[in-house]
């Protein structure tokens, strides 16, 4: 094993596939920010790139790139841990590699078509080959089938590998979750002429992917990551994985109801959505106890400071973004005014960042550590680790700044556009023209630039961290299987 340099020989087969997923994830992360910035500029200067690269396209690519880079990160993380966790080589790795290239080429084609065909009729041809037209799930139908097929290959790799090797608590939860991951996506693949019925199923993908299958996936990845980074024992992480899944499913699945308030579904969804949404922060609050307990007992000693720092950022980001920002506007009595305003965007920015982006970034650092020969990434790094610390600070500052700016804009929209003007067309423009909204959009752009600067620093750090390092990290990983 060679240390201090990037060497594929330091990785097993699954990990070699994982770093391909991580590399594309990182590129898509930058794409997400680039198109987010273009959209942010257009809020401040609406004529910017008008009829060249319109706002709706920039926003769509911004959000879709986020969904896809997170998915690439999760899939990569699972391939990363697969051989160590199962104790055997990945079954069907060649098919897994093929699926990676198919997915990557498909994503590239979809984005090019988005940019090439920005306007046009909505018919079967465009639905199949250009844009399906559903917000967040714009991928054309052919790509939908491709996504499900690739997730099927992914499931085969995971299930067959565990079957040939050994099963564990993490393996069982993970494998079952992958069935739901592929299965739920199918709920967004059929078109109904009744908009209420169509939205009903559409939310199954959006909410249940994000607040059920993704959360469980991240729970599995985190469980393995904590064993690897902190040396936490398997029995502990698996116990907590089961508790987390139970708590999350208890409140998260029917929390779906908060998306059904205003789409034409029956009144009882007010009660179901309000009830479970009100209970959703309780597991997050309860988990504070576990964080404090572990911090106090374990003293957080570890050999990968950047990864641990991003895991800590995950704890705070998830709590604030999903818990606090979610609960502030989730009850139907207030959501009547806030849904679909920048309030939602404020919540979305912090929650997605806190719950998912942070975990993927933590895993990038875990990958770099092993890729360079399981080197020490704790204290005493070259330059005292200023690059990873700077990236952490800039990205967190940027995201929190954007969140607060969007919060102010959302508050103003709720008040003027919704409450005072009664959601009229005139009210929409009154809200958009208000100085609070416009200043908030300017600040959002500023903090977007800060976030991008942090992301560029992050990429630089990932490419250079541990160069020439010869100290070895504790061997938690070798014992984790």
């Amino acid at each position: 094993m060679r240390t201090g340099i990037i060497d594929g020989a330091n990785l097993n087969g699954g990990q070699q596939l994982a770093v391909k997923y991580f590399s594309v994830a990182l590129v898509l992360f930058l794409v997400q920010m680039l198109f987010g910035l273009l959209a942010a500029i257009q809020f401040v200067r609406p004529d910017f790139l008008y009829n060249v690269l319109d706002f709706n396209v920039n926003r769509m690519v911004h959000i879709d790139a986020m969904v896809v880079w997170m998915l690439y990160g999760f899939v990569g993380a699972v391939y990363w841990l697969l051989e160590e966790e199962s104790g055997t080589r990945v079954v069907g790795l060649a098919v897994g590699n093929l699926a990676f290239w198919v997915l990557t080429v498909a994503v590239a084609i979809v984005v090019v078509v988005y940019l090439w065909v920005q306007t046009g009729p909505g018919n079967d041809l465009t639905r199949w080959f250009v844009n399906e037209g559903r917000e967040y799930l714009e991928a054309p139908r052919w790509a939908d089938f491709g996504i499900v097929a690739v997730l099927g290959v992914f499931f085969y790799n995971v299930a067959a590998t565990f079957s040939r090797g050994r099963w564990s608590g993490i393996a069982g939860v993970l494998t079952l979750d992958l069935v739901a991951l592929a299965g739920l996506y199918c709920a967004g693949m059929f078109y109904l002429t009744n908009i209420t019925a169509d939205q009903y199923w559409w939310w199954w993908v959006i909410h249940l992917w994000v607040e059920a299958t993704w959360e469980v996936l991240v729970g599995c990845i985190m469980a393995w990551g904590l064993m690897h980074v902190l040396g936490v024992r398997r029995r502990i992480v698996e116990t907590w994985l089961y508790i987390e899944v139970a708590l999350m499913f208890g409140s998260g699945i029917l929390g779906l109801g908060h998306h059904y308030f205003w789409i034409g579904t029956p009144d009882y969804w007010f009660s179901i959505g309000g009830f479970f949404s009100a209970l959703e922060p309780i597991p997050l609050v309860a988990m504070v106890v576990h964080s404090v307990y572990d911090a106090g007992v374990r003293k957080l000693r570890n050999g990968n400071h950047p990864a641990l720092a991003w895991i800590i950022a995950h704890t705070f980001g998830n709590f604030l973004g999903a818990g606090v920002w979610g609960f502030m506007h989730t009850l139907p009595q207030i959501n009547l005014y806030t849904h679909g305003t920048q309030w939602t965007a404020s919540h979305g920015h912090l929650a997605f960042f806190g719950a998912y982006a942070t975990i993927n970034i933590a895993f990038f650092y875990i990958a770099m550590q092993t890729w360079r020969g399981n080197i020490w990434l704790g204290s005493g790094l070259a330059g005292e680790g200023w690059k990873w610390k700077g990236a952490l600070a800039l990205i967190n500052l940027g995201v929190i700044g954007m969140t607060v700016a969007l919060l102010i804009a959302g508050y103003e929209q709720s008040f003027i556009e919704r409450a005072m003007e009664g959601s009229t067309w005139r009210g929409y423009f009154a809200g958009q023209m208000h100085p609070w909204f416009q200043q908030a959009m300017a600040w959002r752009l500023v903090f977007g630039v800060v976030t991008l600067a942090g992301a560029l620093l992050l990429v630089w750090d990932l490419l250079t961290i541990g160069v020439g390092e010869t100290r070895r990290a504790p061997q938690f990983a070798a014992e984790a299987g």
Partner: protein
Amino acid sequence: MIEPVAPEDFQRVFATAAATVLGGAGYAGLFAWARLKNRRLWLVGAYMCYAASAAAMLLLTRAAHLNGAWQGVVVLMLVGYLLAPHGIWHLCVASHRLERNSRAPPGD
């Protein structure tokens, strides 16, 4: 059915909703710290945070018109915020006791 929040109460709803969750987190954090370090003073702080969370929840109840069956949700939240940290604490202690009793290596 629901009675929407009055526009003049928007700020109160947002602030009290945030204070509810933050107060709950403060209670959970201080509670765990007090039990970990065996300090009663921190426990007093924890219950003050819970009281603040409960007060915020009651203000939210009024501002957001949480009447009728909605008050059941409020009671469940009050009970949940109070008891969940106790439950998680016991689970922490029990699961880590298993760890101490086990001589198996990490990850085993």
